[in-house]
């Protein structure tokens, strides 16, 4: 039932959780206070790579106030978990592989007792060689990090977790024969999610041996599955309730699952509620990052700038555990050569193990890295053939019916051309491209303007079955309760579900309440990732609401004594043949009298597609979003400081369901892209993170974000509710390469390594401070020398 007019969807709306968040009433996991609640402290590894030769917690248990201590021995199979590769542990088992990895957790009545407990634990570590970067990981004599057999093991490179590939023809001979060729390597940094809420979890035991976990997680059902498995409980003995989540951006999966299982175990052991709240330092040291990447791009084009073939190879620093980098790599592979048509493309993305923390999901999920690199490469080719960067893109972008870089045919409306044309016109691009170079002659402050565009596959694609479940019930007071297995960690998904249900049911949004996702009330819908909530979760909500709407129509028809098809709707009113409107409550009450059950379950699934991971061929996604972004900068030639002056963004996200929410996602994504391009970089020296709080790990402030002029190109998407697609992830993609292209326009310096710090812009390379202090060790509790951790060299 695709409606052409809407009452609430697409119109101005208030975020459903807005008032509680604005007046301080909203409870995040760290805000819960329950009687008898214990606190926790962790013993964490002070070194990047070591064998655990002894771990004795007996003395800790004798510390007054300490009620329990756990290690990997307290979990089934030593707490091994991880999907797709089960190489991670709830607490370190046999080895530690990164600085800050949890070894033991103490639960105690207060923080001082917990700290004393941690200091009483005896831990002996036998130091192992540290793999500090991807080159070291590939050396034949490199120490092996994972304890699982990897794809690389067969080829003598055990630290290569796996390689994700695309095989669309053979680009080599085409590139070799092309008059215009490019072969450049680009690099992107580790990025911290920097959600404002540091991780927090609270576990509460029940008398029957089950446990409730309140968590700031993204995907409560995944959390439950892992917790149940490592605790040795059936899934129905573990209930996960998602608290209000203070931002995630992909960052609250694996790490929060570890915290959940840890506190759940401690709660069951002590029979007391157990809370765990990270400080910012603990959050940055312990949590996973966006992978750092190196991407080698080889392109061939004809003299007119028509792209012919691409061969792209990428290496992702996955750190100590593969986590979701295996999937990130797949998405990266699917987008490596950008939103262009080619005769042939191959892509290879290698996931490497190092001792640099670990990497996993982060907004854009591999495509952020891919776009950052390919969009610089496209500009470099455009310059070789003396084409304007936008003309270069217009000449090569994919359209409906074209083959994408993976070889699949695009069967959808494509708004990319419209996006490029909009930003070109709004930014006064042609004049600025022409005039800035002349103005810049001998100027200390130089102006530049740069562009980037992208495509971004929707949903999980070949990663997995893409479905969601929603339920809807009309309560006794005629309010409406919704659940959805997909969650809202700040994205606005609950508001989107509310608006869809309101429109389909013809019920004011104020009647509708979306429950926080609770594994006991919602139905498993897989992980809330890949910007899929609006389309998949939204459709599930629509399906459920349509079932109830149909019952209400029947009830109204019965009341009006007419055929159901004769019942018309105007917002909450039902109108029969005599044109006398009857209100929602009357019809609902009548439906109950008729014995109708006013609750329903809706399930919706994206069409199944097939990708052959072995061959690197198939259809990766059911559809794509598109967009183009332009950034104008001023570069100070004396200091290398780059200031973004203005940003224009046009995104084809299909029909916009919740405009305030969609623009909010867009501006927020652009700002994360600005940070990625200009200033954000997790500095890891010899395995130690240097910038562990917001004084050193800097993200854009209000003073750093320039005015953003944005629009949505609403090319309808036949599978989306009301024609909607998604926005959360793609919004950040173009900013960083557009910045790099703008800096090149301003200075003539091509800086192929992000972020564009003053050092890189001025000198052409970064500077590394090798004598940074022991920030990580300080915040892990090693400053006062009270920890009983003995470190020895391997014999």
């Amino acid at each position: 039932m695709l409606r052409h007019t809407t009452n609430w969807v697409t119109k101005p709306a208030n975020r459903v959780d807005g008032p509680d968040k604005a007046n301080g009433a909203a409870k995040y996991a760290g805000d819960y206070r329950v009687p008898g609640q214990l606190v926790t402290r962790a013993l964490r590894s002070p070194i990047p790579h070591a064998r655990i030769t002894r771990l004795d917690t007996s003395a800790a248990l004798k510390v007054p106030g300490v009620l329990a201590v756990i290690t990997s021995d307290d979990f089934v199979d030593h707490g091994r978990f991880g999907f797709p590769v089960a190489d991670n542990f709830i607490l370190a088992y046999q080895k530690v592989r990164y600085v800050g990895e949890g070894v033991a957790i103490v639960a105690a009545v207060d923080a001082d007792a917990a700290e004393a407990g941690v200091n009483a634990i005896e831990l002996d570590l036998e130091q192992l060689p540290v793999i500090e970067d991807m080159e070291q990981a590939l050396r034949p004599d490199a120490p092996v990090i994972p304890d699982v057999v990897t794809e690389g093991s067969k080829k003598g490179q055990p630290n290569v977790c796996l390689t994700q590939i695309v095989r669309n023809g053979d680009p080599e001979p085409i590139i070799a024969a092309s008059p215009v060729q490019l072969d450049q390597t680009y690099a992107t940094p580790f990025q911290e999610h920097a959600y404002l809420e540091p991780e927090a979890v609270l576990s509460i035991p029940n008398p029957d041996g089950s446990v409730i976990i309140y968590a700031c997680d993204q995907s409560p059902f995944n959390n439950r599955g892992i917790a149940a498995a490592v605790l040795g409980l059936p899934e129905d003995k573990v209930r996960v309730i998602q608290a209000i989540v203070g931002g995630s951006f992909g960052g609250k999966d694996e790490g929060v699952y570890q915290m959940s299982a840890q506190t759940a175990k401690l709660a069951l052991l002590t029979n007391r509620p157990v809370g765990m709240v990270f400080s910012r330092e603990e959050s940055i040291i312990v949590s996973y990052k966006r992978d750092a990447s190196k991407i080698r791009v080889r392109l061939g084009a004809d003299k007119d700038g028509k792209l012919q073939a691409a061969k792209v190879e990428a290496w992702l620093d996955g750190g100590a555990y593969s986590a979701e980098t295996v999937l990130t790599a797949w998405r990266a592979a699917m987008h490596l050569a950008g939103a262009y048509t080619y005769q042939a493309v191959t892509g290879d993305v290698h996931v490497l193990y190092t001792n640099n923390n670990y990497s996993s999901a982060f907004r854009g999920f591999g495509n952020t890295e891919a776009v950052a690199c390919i969009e610089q490469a496209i500009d470099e080719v455009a310059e070789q053939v003396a084409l304007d960067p936008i003309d270069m893109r217009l000449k090569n972008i994919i359209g409906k019916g074209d083959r994408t870089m993976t070889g699949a045919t695009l069967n959808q409306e494509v708004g990319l051309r419209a996006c490029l044309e909009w930003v070109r016109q709004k930014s006064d691009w042609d004049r600025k491209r022409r005039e800035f170079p002349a103005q810049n002659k001998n100027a200390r402050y130089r102006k530049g303007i740069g562009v980037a565009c992208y495509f971004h596959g929707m949903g999980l694609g070949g990663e997995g079955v893409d479905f969601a479940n929603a339920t809807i019930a009309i309560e006794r007071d005629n309010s409406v309760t919704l659940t959805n297995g997909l969650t809202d960690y700040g994205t606005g998904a609950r508001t989107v579900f509310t608006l869809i249900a309101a429109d389909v049911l013809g019920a004011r949004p104020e009647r509708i309440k979306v429950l926080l996702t609770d594994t006991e009330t919602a139905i498993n819908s897989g992980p809330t990732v890949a910007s899929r909530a609006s389309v998949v979760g939204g459709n599930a909500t629509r399906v459920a609401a349509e079932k109830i709407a149909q019952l209400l129509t029947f009830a109204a028809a019965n009341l009006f004594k007419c055929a159901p098809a004769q019942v018309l709707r105007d917002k909450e009113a039902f109108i029969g043949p005599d044109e006398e409107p009857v209100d929602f409550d009357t019809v609902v009450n009548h439906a109950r009298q008729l014995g109708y059950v006013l609750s329903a379950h809706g399930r919706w699934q994206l069409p199944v597609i097939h990708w052959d991971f072995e061959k690197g061929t198939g259809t990766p996604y059911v559809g794509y979003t598109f967009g183009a972004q332009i950034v104008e900068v001023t570069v100070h030639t004396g200091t290398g400081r780059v200031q973004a002056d203005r940003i224009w963004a046009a995104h084809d996200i299909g029909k916009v369901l919740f405009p305030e929410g969609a623009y909010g996602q867009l501006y927020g994504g652009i700002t994360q892209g600005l940070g990625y391009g200009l200033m954000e970089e997790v500095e890891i020296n010899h395995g130690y993170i240097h910038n562990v709080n917001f004084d050193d790990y800097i993200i854009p402030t209000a003073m750093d974000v320039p005015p953003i002029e944005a629009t949505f190109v609403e090319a309808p998407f036949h599978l989306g509710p009301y024609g909607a697609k998604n926005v959360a992830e793609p919004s950040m993609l173009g900013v960083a390469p557009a910045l790099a292209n703008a800096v090149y326009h301003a200075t003539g310096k091509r800086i192929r390594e992000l972020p564009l710090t003053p050092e890189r812009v001025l000198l052409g390379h970064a500077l590394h401070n090798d004598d940074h202090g022991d920030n990580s060790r300080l915040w892990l509790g090693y400053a006062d020398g009270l920890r009983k951790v003995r470190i020895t060299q391997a014999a």
Partner: protein
Amino acid sequence: MNIQIDFTLNGRAVSIDAPAHVTLLRLLRDYLNLTGTKEGCAIGECGACSVLLDGRVVNSCLVLAPQVSGRDVMTVEGLAPVEGAMSDLQAAFVKYGAVQCGYCTPGLVIAGEALLRDNHFPTRDEINDGIAGNLCRCTGYQQIVDAIEQTARQRAAAQVKE
């Protein structure tokens, strides 16, 4: 070393016994159970813990609890005319899409209120300057500036009417 701290909190007199070395942030959250004020960094870099101290915005993580003795503290919970409702600025945050994950919101509402009390007609640049001490990772600040700007206009219009 415990110390008695008497101060005005959201318009009400409060008397509480707490260790002298705890921060105002901990006092609010752990001793007074007012959890609307958030901890984001604990070193004065993010503004999530902003409160008004004698009407001026400060980071409560950098204020020692006994420093507020005899002074006036206003938290996000105290801004609305009626408990649980919203002030005009809070309502504007919701209306203009300035709230996403919401974790920075209490601090930003406090900073916005401090700014508007000081400057009745702020420009967008002045608003950006005024909220520079409040990090937000979700919104890109644009709609936050909208909400503060629109509230200033509403308040000015209301004054003209009176």
